[in-house]
């Protein structure tokens, strides 16, 4: 406990640990990283992220960066984007990748699953309207395949189309001739990735 007295803003950290579930040490590490990324300023902006060298090879770089500035990831009812984020928001976004703890009840596990899937959903749903439309899904697949070089756009499109139809056939039983399947809603998304075990897959070591 002695090491903690050197950390500034200890009361604020207690808040954060309660909110996000990180330990004191982990928050300390994140704080250091935050300072490093922001060059000791108080807030992070998009160009700070652009400086991270390792991210350049990542095909979904833009979406990852956007996820940090998306208010929906900060708390339940957020809307829209921000231009810069503070340390608290940084930690909150990171907390989506915490591993589930060993002893959890079923509903805690379910809650964590929903949170993580919500994060993914927000990454896909770029226009914020609550559904992933075909265009947005196509964009996702194109970005994924964008680094592979020689690729016809047709293939990416047909993969996205096939995926979309798969969702439609899973989620919707029977459609009237006038009905349209507007897009993947969050419930359909949950159903789609039901067997995916996301609570253990979407984690990194802190």
């Amino acid at each position, binding site marked *: 406990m002695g090491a903690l007295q050197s950390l500034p803003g200890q009361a604020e950290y207690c808040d954060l640990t309660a909110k996000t579930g990180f330990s004191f040490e982990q928050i300390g590490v994140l704080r250091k990283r935050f300072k490093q990324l922001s060059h000791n300023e108080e807030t992070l902006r998009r160009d700070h992220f652009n400086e991270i060298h390792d991210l350049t*090879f990542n095909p979904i770089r833009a979406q990852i960066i956007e996820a940090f500035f998306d208010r929906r990831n900060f708390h339940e009812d957020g809307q829209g984007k921000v231009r810069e984020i503070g340390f608290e928001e940084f930690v909150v976004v990171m907390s989506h990748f915490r591993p*589930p703890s060993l002893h959890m009840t079923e509903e805690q596990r379910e809650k964590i699953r929903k949170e993580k899937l919500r994060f993914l959903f927000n990454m896909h749903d770029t226009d914020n309207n609550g559904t992933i439309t075909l265009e947005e899904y196509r964009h996702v697949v194109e970005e994924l395949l964008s680094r592979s070089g020689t690729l016809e756009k047709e293939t990416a499109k*047909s993969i996205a189309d096939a995926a979309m139809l798969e*969702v439609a*056939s899973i989620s919707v039983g029977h459609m009237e001739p006038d009905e349209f399947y507007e*897009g993947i809603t969050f419930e359909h998304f949950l159903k789609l990735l039901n067997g995916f075990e996301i609570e253990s897959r979407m984690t*990194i070591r802190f």
Partner: protein
Amino acid sequence: MAVLSPARRSSAPRLTGLLCLLFLIFFSHAFAGRDAASGKDRNSSGAIREDSHNQTNSTAHKKAFPVLSFEYEHVKRPFEISLWILLALLMKLGFHIIPTVSHIVPESCLLIFVGLLVGGIIKATGETPPVLDSKLFFLYLLPPIILDAGYFLPIRPFTENIGTILMFAVVGTLWNVFFIGGMMYAVCQIDAAKLGGVDLLSCLLFGSIISAVDPVSVLAVFEEIHINELLHIIVFGESLLNDAVTVVLYHLFKEFAHDKAMTVTGTVLGVISFFVVSLGGIMVGVIYGIVGAFTSRFTSHTRVIEPLFVFLYSYMAYLSAEVFHLSGIMSLIACGVIMRPYVEANISHKSYTTIKYFLKMWSSVSDTLIFIFLGVSTVAGPHAWNWIFVLFTVVFCLLSRVLGVIGLTAFINKFRIIKLTKKDQFIIAYGGLRGAIAFSLGFLLTEDENKDLFLTAIITVIFFTVFVQGMTIRPLVELLAVKRKKESKESINEEIHSQFLDHLLTGIEDVCGHYGHHHWKDKLNRFNKTYVKRWLIAGERSTEPQLISFYNKLELKQAMMLVESGSAAKLPAIVSSVSMQNSETKGLTRRRAIPTISKSREEEIRRVLRANLQKTRQRLRSYSRYDLVSEPYEDNMSEALFRKQRAMERRVSFNAGSKAYVLRFGQVHISDLSTNSVTILTLTDVLESNDIEYLFICSVLNKTWENMFLKRNKNNMFLISVLRVRDLTGLKVIWAKKNKQTDL
């Protein structure tokens, strides 16, 4: 020879199976007996032959030409081997015909039991039953099983849990060796046991033989219980990787026991030797793997021998490692793992199937033979039964396993993201089965007074683990409600999200700044893509991203499924999702108008469809290996063209009457050959109007010339349900037969 009659219901096949079993046992015994007494026979038969020969020579015109003669000697060896293998396979067949037993008792137990029976019969007639020869085991029976396991090793869970696996394999085995060795030495000190002749080093040697978890037994038992991937890969991976430890300790203690002394330098050398053995083995495997992958790059003109390259390179890797006393198992695994992604990108689909089936076949035969021989050897071998020794061995084996697992898990869980629960620990501990490797190692011991004692104890432990633990693990798994293996349905959404998640996690790790698991995996992938793949994969496939290969494979699989399983008249029931452009200009009301077709038309359509389908099917079958028809799936060049064509055009066309119908992406082009005019219609038009006689739908997930059509009459073949996504129209086909509606 007994021939199994075609399977009729109920008891007839069982009866025939049993009869056949008995027949075979007696037959084999007869031959085994024959060869054991071969000395006498050979001479006598030789004499007879010589006699007749002489006679023939001297009285050529007197003695008639032998129409039928009996000469067994020169086919003796292959005959016996084949007979044993046949016996083993018939046993296996027999068990699956008798369903009730195979549900309760795992196959390995039954096979050992049969081995005991056969051994007993052979012994009862006074001959010596064959023993499981160590050379036979290590050189011929073990490699196929290991190669099968290594080639199809699921890489992702293996690498994700590699730390855990190594801990169990190395530290766990070391703990087992020293605990069992030490405790057995303590037991030997008890005067009542009369085991004074067993010294510490011998005990440690014994410990090193008995400690290792055996991959053959683990595979045999775990395959049947279908537990979740994590536990399976931990126990199985441990059984594979502990080979290095076993090899080193076995040789080390053998040396020490021989010299009756343990030296410090010896121990240090032992530690060094461990690293040499394991890393050297892996390196040998990697070298052979790369050479094998490189060779497969050039096999596009000689498809028939492709599988052989895989088998031979792997076997050479194993043998080369054994030459240097390196770990052959690790070498084999490394070779298979390295070779597989590149070879699979290069070889034809048929070769892939061949490799898969041959590996499964060989490993199945090996596995069966091993267990039967274990049973026979038990009856055969000289035994020295000492109650205390054997009992305490079994007890300490169990105890050390449990303690080891608990201790190690407590340590490992500090580093794992997904911790191992108590249930997991129980299964890991309970799954520590011993098997034939321990027996063979014991058999290789030099003949001294302790060898029989050790062998008996080893066999008892093997029997205990395989019978007791093997039989009870299935009900225990169900009792404890351990997570089972989840059925993998290949869904393109999951694949997309798998990839997405990989990149996402790598990105987040980069933002966080520490180089974790994903970062290195990503770096390795990039290295692989830019440098290695270019050398080892032929043609354009080297640059194909994984998602696309997955997608193509999925399509190909569904296409082949469709073509192979149905004729035109009864097309199989699948959900065929079709993607077509919705012409947005027509915002008409959409009634589900399905055109009606006259009877004669229907017949014509059926005929044309059948012809088309048969053409496709003919292409898939090829008879002679000298003129393999160049099929779209096999020839690399035409496959690339084929793919391009599909991706670009996606057309289906055929002629009927004077009209040619071409289905392009979402549109039907009807060219009237007589008038040379072309009409273009969209799906919407077709659905709306009654003029179009039939519609051919080419499924997005199946890009061959499989045609289905809609029609409606009293006995509806199928209904169509329309799925409309904005900008996209799909058709979901639901099969309806008479009153039953099967919706897939």
